[in-house]
């Protein structure tokens, strides 16, 4: 396992879990092991074994890129002959070597994130936690960040522990856990999760959704889910089912679509909510913007 995805609706307990794993919070119950160590017994051991990229930026904006890395190296007890060559290699990978002596204040959000990734890997952690690493960044930049992450992962062999609201990021994971109301409701590979959804997903909108749902239950013995003014149903052979469905409904159909199940479908099935890319990123982009404005 190389990339572990940790998904869940807002308020499901993701940040709390990360807080416990990163030794920032004490668990109120249960047992935790990070890289084989118990954060409540050996917090410093866990701290040395992990790297963290927080949701919000955590760089010193008044220091240069290299000074931020130097600070990190010192508090992680790395001698100069160990961290300096590493810092150069990491900064070259994230394309910041030429800007190493510039004050972080002058960096864009994307550059700050890249610097944080380099910093998080400087002490060669066994697990790198990434809490919504690309939130508030535009799609191009997100792609950019991911190409760096993939490259670094190949070079360092570090496990990535990732929380995200983005479907495409979840798809990159080797294994995914979905948390809801503080409980893990699923733990599987993306394909394994998708196979839990029965075959294909049909989404339709009709003039009268309530009546259509009743008819579908009555005539095809299928359950439908209401979501944002559409009906969602799962069938085994979608292509063959659509003509039967259209013929069997007396309610006028406005739109109908068929697709392979996505992780979003799994997510909806398990938590009753969509991952809601747009809304979440909209709010968070605003928040990121506010923070940028208040930044020193």
């Amino acid at each position: 396992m190389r990339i572990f995805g940790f998904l869940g609706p807002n308020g499901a307990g993701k940040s709390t879990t990360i807080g416990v794993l990163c030794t920032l919070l004490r668990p109120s119950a249960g047992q935790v092991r990070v890289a084989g160590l118990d954060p409540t017994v050996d917090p410093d051991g866990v701290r040395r074994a992990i790297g963290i990229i927080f949701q919000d930026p955590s760089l010193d904006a008044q220091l240069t890129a290299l000074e931020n890395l130097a600070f990190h190296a010192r508090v992680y007890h790395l001698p100069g002959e160990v961290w300096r060559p590493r810092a150069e290699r990491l900064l070259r990978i994230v394309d910041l070597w030429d800007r190493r002596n510039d004050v972080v204040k002058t960096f864009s959000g994307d550059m700050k994130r890249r610097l944080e990734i380099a910093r998080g890997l400087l002490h060669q952690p066994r697990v790198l936690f990434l809490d919504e690493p690309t939130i508030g960044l535009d799609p191009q930049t997100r792609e950019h960040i991911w190409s760096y992450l993939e490259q670094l992962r190949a070079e360092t062999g570090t496990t990535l522990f990732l929380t995200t609201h983005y479907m495409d990021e979840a798809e990159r994971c080797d294994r995914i856990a979905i948390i809801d109301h503080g409980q893990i409701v699923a733990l599987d590979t993306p394909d394994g999760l998708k196979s839990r959804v029965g075959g294909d997903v049909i989404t339709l909108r009709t003039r009268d959704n309530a009546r259509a749902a009743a008819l579908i239950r009555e005539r095809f013995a299928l359950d439908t889910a209401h979501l944002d003014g559409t009906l969602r149903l799962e069938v085994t052979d979608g292509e063959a089912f659509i003509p039967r469905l259209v013929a069997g409904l007396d309610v006028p159909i406005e739109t109908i679509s068929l697709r392979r199940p996505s992780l979003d479908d799994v997510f909806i099935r398990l938590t009753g909510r969509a991952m809601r890319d747009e809304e979440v990123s909209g709010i968070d982009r605003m928040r990121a913007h506010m923070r940028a404005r208040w930044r020193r």
Partner: protein
Amino acid sequence: MTSRTVAVEHRSPRAPGRVTAALDGIVTLWYRDLLRFFRDRSRIVGSFAQPLLYLFIFGSGLSASMGRLGGAGLSYVQFIFPGIVSMTVLFTAIFSAVSIIWDREFGFLKEILVAPIPRWSLAVGKALGRSTTAMLQGVLMLSFAPLVGVSLAPRLVLALLPLIFLTAFALSSLGLLVAARMRSLEGFQLVMNFLMMPIFFLSGALFPLNNLPGWLTVFTRLDPAAYGVDAIRHVTLPGAGPALGLTLFGHPMTPLTDALVVLAFGALMIALAVRAFQTQE
């Protein structure tokens, strides 16, 4: 595929000893404050505005009608000069704790809190860093001495360094203690303004602390800054004489006894600040 994973060197930093880990934390946080201090030159210059206003306008203004003070016949502006040096140190030190709130607000505190260093080294490193920068500002303030007719031998400046540092450390630790509990900048500023002005006015920076009404005498003796100001004044103005010096229960204080009181207060404050940081989050 797997051979690659195995071949990659997978080494977390080795566990250092407790003392080494704490020292790494203290020195790194100390160094960071110095770096930031020297980077922000406009703030260094800006922080002199208020003390210089007090010294040259308030001080010179009152000098005209105050006559001569003490045995050596000091002018009022000369009398308050060490007080204004102390004021610079006091304000810088006590408000410097605001940087903890900034760090919390802008996430850098998290980077420190998840680092493998003990929490107490964070408080101590911060206090040392902030008192060093406050001391540097106090020393820069000393360079105005010739303008008010105070002559400072290099020997005296050397003697002042530890006294200024100690005063700065005690007040930085007080600031840290407050900041450890504060979540918002507004709250911190409110509490600090509430604390700082009484500490400043009662410290004897602006008037001698002798022959005061009884209640005021009590309050001034409870102000830790009063002992710092007294020590700094004794060294800066050797001719000031006992009439202008601080007394405690009828005994005149010396720079050494003053320093001991400040040290005791500083030790208590840093201990409380350390505890406050250890119990949070």
